């Protein structure tokens, strides 16, 4: 809501600067978003001197002027051929600036002549009505300077953000009243003593058929008016408030809307069939071609203003193209009404139209302002549009508005605020908002009709606190019951995971919960994959954020891409976030998932280390560390069935026979679809089963003690077939029940010359220890020999 200080000053005596007024409003709960000077907002409107004048070839009606702003020389084409003279100082709107009529100035070319801007008339400069004259500036004007600075003209406009509860502040008068409430500066309310209250008999008929939709409907007939351009002061005020002038009648309705907050609508009387006006529900399917050029179809929930045959206006929102006031209009009917805010809101939402009018009706207007608005408009119309006939006012008001009576007890106020404000002060504050009567231990209060937001005692608590000053109320700590509950275990679990990954050198990422369905296509999932059963947004910002993610993979890969294209060649990231799966219900299943991604180099090339790329064993290692810390047994089952992973370099992860995730290398083809030309290793785990497992796990905490006797190790090195997996050998070792065996591990694998093709050399290390003595070499050797023999036999191994 834009509030010009000059207009505001008509209703209140401002005793402080606009900046101070802005501060008072802000601290009173009316946020001032900006203090503007609309003249400055127009852009570069500057003084230039005319140097030379030519008649452009083939353009007889125009003059081509060479002008200077003191620095550069431009050419400007003008129609004011007779007015331009060398050495005149005139106003120029430079390209990219705006003029009063809202036109954006651009470099124009007519034939071969270019015009770098436009000479201003007083009108286009927003200074007066003359449109044909050139704006002449004083001789001494500094060239290049803003014309407004030279003329000493400025306007200050406060741009207010009005909260939805305060519809009463959507007018100049309303803001003046609010400033009065906050400061007690003198208010000059509008005077209606000389208003035109009576007139000729109303020549038509008005009937409210939908009493739920329309609470009050008033109007007036004006005959033989002159529809023309508004006087400049009206146009200027509309412009200051961000509205465009149209014609005097429409401008007056807008003027009153801005001034009093009362929306008005003017009908062309001749277009009203049978001179009958019905306020009724629309018939289902009823159509209206509206002022914005769109034809809309109504339903029974819509409220329309109709004549005997057809709807003319979607009530409180927008008029029809046909019934509006045009240049040819002679007689008008001016409407001023109070519509049901809920009905207006629903219609405006359904048809996606917001107008100055609907915006105010939705936020509720002052029921007692309906006729006042009409009176104010009558005054302006009679002055400006020269009507020959003015009718009486029709005012249909079936059920008078009765403001609520609210009780505010001192005790309630004190208990709510934790602070006691003296009764006299409370009373003085309430008096500014309505009628107050002291009663017993508090007040009986009836708000003014424009304060439709005041309904319950708590509303009054806020008003009293706000006007008294929030910052004058002291701060304290609550006196309350101490109670303790165990913190949420899943949150602790999540935090633990994050700390583990941080300590493993990972960076945490947070990505959007909505993704592009195309990214799922790129994963090449099977048709029945549950991840393709996703939840769609009804109104996404764009198609690449149009479905709720069912896997973390696309987000992680896109994060990798973003980094890859910005010179990151080593990435080690994780994310813990929800995925979203549809259910039978409205709500979704939102399991927490963990995603891990490794991309590019595992290290940096340094003086002590060669460059190494991440491989699957990095990923497996990190996951193993995670599971070790969590003390859960997760099986790495080669090879994963995920379509987007290289089968040979991937695992499915199983917990108690249930698949909880996967880990592996992304297929090159998939990465290519994401435009990524590097290796990516990825893992995703559903944390829900992991968390549940940890909750149910009977934790056997084994504290290891330092050994008393030394251990000893023996290695077996042999050549076996390449396809034999290490796990097979280790599993086989387990079956042998080897005495004193403490640990066994593969410590070396070698393929290549001189090992024959299709075979590999491996070294397995066996650790032995007895708890009660130092083992003798001899007995270990005996055990080891027998083990080695069995391994050689079982795997047809050859000695190295």
């Amino acid at each position, binding site marked *: 809501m834009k509030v010009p200080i000059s207009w505001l000053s008509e209703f209140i005596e401002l005793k402080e600067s606009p900046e101070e007024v802005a501060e008072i409003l802000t601290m009173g709960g009316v946020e001032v978003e900006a203090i503007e000077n609309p003249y400055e907002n127009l852009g570069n409107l500057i003084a230039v001197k005319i140097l030379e004048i030519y008649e452009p070839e083939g353009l007889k009606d125009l003059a081509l002027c060479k002008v200077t702003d003191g620095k550069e020389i431009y050419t400007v084409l003008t129609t004011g051929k007779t007015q331009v003279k060398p050495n005149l100082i005139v106003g120029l709107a430079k390209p990219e600036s705006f003029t009063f009529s809202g036109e954006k100035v651009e470099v124009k070319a007519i034939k071969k002549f270019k015009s770098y801007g436009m000479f201003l008339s007083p009108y286009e400069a927003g200074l007066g009505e003359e449109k044909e004259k050139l704006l002449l500036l004083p001789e001494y004007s500094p060239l290049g300077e803003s014309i407004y600075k030279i003329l000493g003209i400025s306007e200050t406009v406060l741009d207010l953000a009005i909260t939805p509860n305060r519809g009463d502040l959507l007018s100049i008068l309303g803001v003046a009243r609010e400033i009065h409430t906050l400061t007690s500066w003198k208010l000059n309310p509008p005077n209606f003593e000389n208003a035109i209250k009576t007139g000729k008999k109303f020549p038509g008929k008005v009937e409210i058929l939908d009493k739920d939709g329309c609470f009050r409907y008033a109007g007036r007939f004006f005959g033989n008016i002159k529809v023309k351009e508004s006087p400049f002061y009206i146009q200027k005020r509309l412009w200051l408030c961000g509205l465009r002038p149209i014609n005097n009648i429409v401008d007056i309705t807008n003027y009153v809307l801005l001034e009093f907050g009362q929306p008005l609508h003017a009908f062309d009387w001749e277009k009203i069939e049978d001179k009958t006006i019905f306020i009724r529900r629309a018939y289902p399917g009823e159509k209206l071609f509206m002022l914005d050029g769109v034809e809309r179809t109504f339903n029974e929930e819509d409220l329309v203003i109709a004549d005997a045959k057809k709807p003319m206006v979607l009530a409180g929102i927008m008029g029809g193209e046909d019934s509006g006031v045009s240049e040819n209009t002679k007689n008008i009917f001016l409407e001023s009404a109070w519509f049901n805010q809920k009905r207006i809101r*629903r219609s405006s939402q359904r048809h996606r139209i917001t107008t100055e009018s609907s915006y105010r009706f939705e936020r509720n207007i002052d029921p007692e302002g309906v006729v006042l608005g009409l009176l104010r408009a009558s005054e302006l119309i009679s002055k400006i549009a020269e009507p020959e006939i003015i009718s009486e006012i029709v005012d249909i008001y079936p059920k008078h508005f009765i403001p609520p009576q609210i009780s505010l007890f001192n005790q309630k106020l004190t208990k709510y605020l934790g602070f006691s404000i003296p009764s006299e002060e409370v009373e003085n504050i309430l008096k500014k908002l309505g009628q107050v009567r002291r009663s017993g231990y508090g007040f009986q209060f009836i708000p003014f009709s424009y304060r439709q937001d005041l309904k319950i005692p708590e509303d009054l608590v*806020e008003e009293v606190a*706000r006007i008294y000053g*929030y910052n004058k109320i002291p701060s304290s700590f609550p006196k309350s019951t101490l109670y303790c*509950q165990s913190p949420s275990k899943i949150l602790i679990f999540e935090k633990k995971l994050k700390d583990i990954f941080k300590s493993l050198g990972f*960076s945490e990422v947070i990505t959007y919960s909505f993704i592009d369905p195309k990214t799922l296509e790129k994963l090449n999932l099977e048709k029945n994959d549950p991840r393709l059963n996703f939840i769609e947004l009804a*109104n996404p910002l764009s198609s690449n954020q149009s479905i709720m993610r069912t896997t973390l993979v696309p987000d992680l890969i896109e994060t990798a891409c*973003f980094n890859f294209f910005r010179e990151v060649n080593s990435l080690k990231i994780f994310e813990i976030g929800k995925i979203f799966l549809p259910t039978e219900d*409205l709500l979704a299943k939102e399991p927490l998932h963990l995603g891990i991604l490794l991309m590019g180099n595992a290290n940096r090339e340094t003086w002590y280390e060669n460059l190494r790329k991440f491989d699957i064993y990095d990923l497996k290692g990190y996951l193993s560390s995670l599971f070790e810390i969590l003390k859960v047994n997760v099986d790495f089952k080669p090879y994963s069935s995920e379509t987007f992973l290289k089968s040979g370099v991937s695992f499915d992860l199983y917990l108690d026979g249930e698949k909880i995730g996967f880990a592996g290398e992304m297929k090159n083809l998939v990465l290519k679809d994401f435009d990524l030309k590097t290796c990516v290793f990825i893992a995703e785990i559903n944390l829900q089963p992991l968390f549940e497992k940890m909750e149910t796990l009977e934790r056997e905490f084994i504290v290891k003690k330092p050994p008393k006797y030394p251990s000893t190790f023996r290695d077996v090195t042999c050549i076996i077939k390449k396809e034999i997996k290490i796990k097979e050998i280790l599993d086989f070792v387990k079956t042998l029940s080897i005495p004193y065996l403490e640990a066994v591990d593969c410590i070396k694998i070698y393929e290549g010359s001189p090992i024959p093709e299709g075979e590999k050399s491996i070294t397995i290390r066996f650790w032995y220890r007895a708890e009660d003595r130092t083992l003798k070499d001899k007995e270990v050797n005996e055990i080891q020999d027998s083990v080695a023999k069995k391994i050689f036999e079982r795997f047809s191994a050859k000695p190295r």
Partner: protein
Amino acid sequence: MISEEIEKLKKEVWETFEKIQDLSHLENFRVKYLGKKGKITSLLKSLKDLSLEEKRRLGKELNELRDQLEEKLKIKEREILFKEEDKDLGLDLTLPGRAFPVGTLHPLSQIIDELCNIFSRLGFEIVTGPEIETEYYNFTALNIPDWHPARDMQATFYLKNGALLRTHTSPMQIRTMLERKPPLRIIAPGKVYRCDADVRHSPMFHQLEGLMVDKDVNFADLKGILTYFAKETFGEKTKVRFRPSYFPFTEPSLEMDIECVICKGKGCRVCGEAGWLEILGAGMVHPEVFNAVNYDTEIWQGFAFGLGIERIAMIKYGIDDIRMFFENHLLFLQSFK
């Protein structure tokens, strides 16, 4: 005679001892005086022809000299060995050390953690809930019926089935109050969504909701709690102010500003020349909200507050583009180590 020799020897021994520089000197010295044919050994041997008393006296003297010398040599040897180890030419210690990659939590996670810690100290319990919500929890129960223009304050993402992405963490007030009996004191951090995207707005962002309900918690207490939060988050000297505002689910409502951390209240680009930065919205729980969860407003009153995590992070770290949080560039993330 011999005693003169001994005196001479003593003098010679200690003079020579002082000159020992390295291990070879030391070894020569040992051989020269203490070796089998060394001077002290020889002198000792030559004592055998003397009288018993002289033998004892001089023998004792020589033995003492020898013992002393051996003791001192041990110390000397250790000294020399210690110095030996410093003799190597130093390494090029200007080379970087073997680095261990340091991980980092997302700045938003860090802020959420920090805020959770602050409110945990005040006895608030952390709860979480669904991100896909119904109109009822997100709006209606919070005193925002479908016709209410306050719905415009939060541009909502709807789902095709009629559910929506929660536009704030306030539904957690309703969910918690329906589940539990008062008194209660909770905070609810989490993701929220609004159809808005520019340098200041992200379609997904994070909020933290707070709710306290008890018999005697009031507006002054709300100010106290929020002031404590601001000082813990932005520093002891942080100035705060409270402005009246409007939220359908609180009455009275307020917004809290802190003095601009950049210009210290003078007015700058960051605070839009205001000198103050808006930090959060709060208020006393609206009776309609208590009615929706069947809390008796005659007994219970409380306050609620909600704040944007990104906003706090942006102010704290001087970040001017909210999108950076979700682009996750490694350099950006690693600056929060």
